[in-house]
């Protein structure tokens, strides 16, 4: 009887983990582990390279997702607006190119060139960085605040509250978060959710 109960519990635990292969990742306030990923120019980039920045707007993004396309100009604008103020954009593509061929390294490099990206567009080949952060969608933003040599999560979620129409946006979550950090204030909204494309995980 006891064994049956243990088995039942184990099965239930398995079902829970099986249904949720992606870990929960970082929460707001957590210090993130540094990473080293290849940029579209072939050079390696890590958070340690941003030792003089006030923080980083880290965005899990991709070439192919219609939401990423809808937000592309807004991502470029975020970098233009905040890089000079100490919060540059760093974009990471974690999509498995076997599942999503339009997200190959070559396609990423082409996209960065076409759109004249002035920020790194990194490939997360092993998907370990996306998993460590708990990124699920594209685009999925993590605003990181630098404290000494550490980067702490200050905001997780969407860029704003209207994907289809930038002009109808009335809550610019990322801008509000970065503005608050720049002013030394608390971030008003630290976590949001939005409809988006799931990251294309490797078939295991």
């Amino acid at each position, binding site marked *: 009887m006891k064994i049956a109960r243990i088995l039942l519990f184990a099965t239930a635990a398995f*079902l829970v983990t099986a*249904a*949720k292969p*992606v870990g929960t990742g970082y929460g707001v306030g957590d210090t993130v582990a540094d990473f080293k990923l290849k940029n579209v120019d072939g050079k390696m980039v890590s958070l340690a390279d941003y030792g003089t920045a006030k923080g980083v707007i880290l965005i899990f993004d991709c070439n192919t997702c219609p939401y990423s396309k809808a937000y592309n100009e807004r991502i470029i604008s975020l970098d233009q607006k905040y890089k000079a103020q100490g919060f540059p954009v760093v974009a990471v593509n974690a999509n498995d190119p076997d599942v999503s061929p339009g997200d190959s390294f070559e396609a990423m490099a082409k996209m960065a060139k076409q759109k004249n990206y002035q920020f790194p567009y990194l490939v997360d080949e092993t998907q370990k960085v996306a998993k460590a952060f708990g990124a699920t969608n594209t685009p999925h933003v993590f605003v990181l605040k630098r404290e000494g040599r550490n980067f702490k999560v200050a905001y997780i979620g969407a860029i704003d509250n209207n994907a*289809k129409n930038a002009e109808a946006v009335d809550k610019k979550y990322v801008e509000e978060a970065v503005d608050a950090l720049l002013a030394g204030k608390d971030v008003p909204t630290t976590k949001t959710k*939005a409809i*988006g494309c*799931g990251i*294309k995980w490797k078939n295991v």
Partner: protein
Amino acid sequence: MMKKLFLYLLVCLPALATAQSAPIIDSKTLIERLNAKSDQIEVVNFWATWCGPCVAELPLFEKLNNEGRSGIKVTLVSMDLDLVDDPQKVYKFVALKKIKSEVLIVDEPDANSWIDDIHSEWSGSLPATLVINHKTGKRKFVANPVREGDLERLIDAVK
């Protein structure tokens, strides 16, 4: 003007007669619907026509629906309007693929205000699947594409 309308109806009516209507609803209606007491196990899939993995997994939901098992209800909730205002693409898709499961189209711009009410584990990524058994009160949520056999396992898990 009338002539144009007449022509439009002439062309569209036969298509409309065979395809389902796919009502457009707000998030409140959707959540009320998901919380309404029912004897059936509800299999609810969140999808969009522009979402490749969603389209790829739809046949599994259609298969489950078309088996016509008593006690199982399949609903396909389209999120197309979150990105594009026009529902025509959904109507065309439903007609073209001869979708038999019930299709609902959600029109609600500020997703952050209601995603947690569907399931706390849902980040908003598509596809996503929720299986509800109102009798046992159990809910199972999957934030990834489902594969052959997954729906059976989820249904068993809420029994």
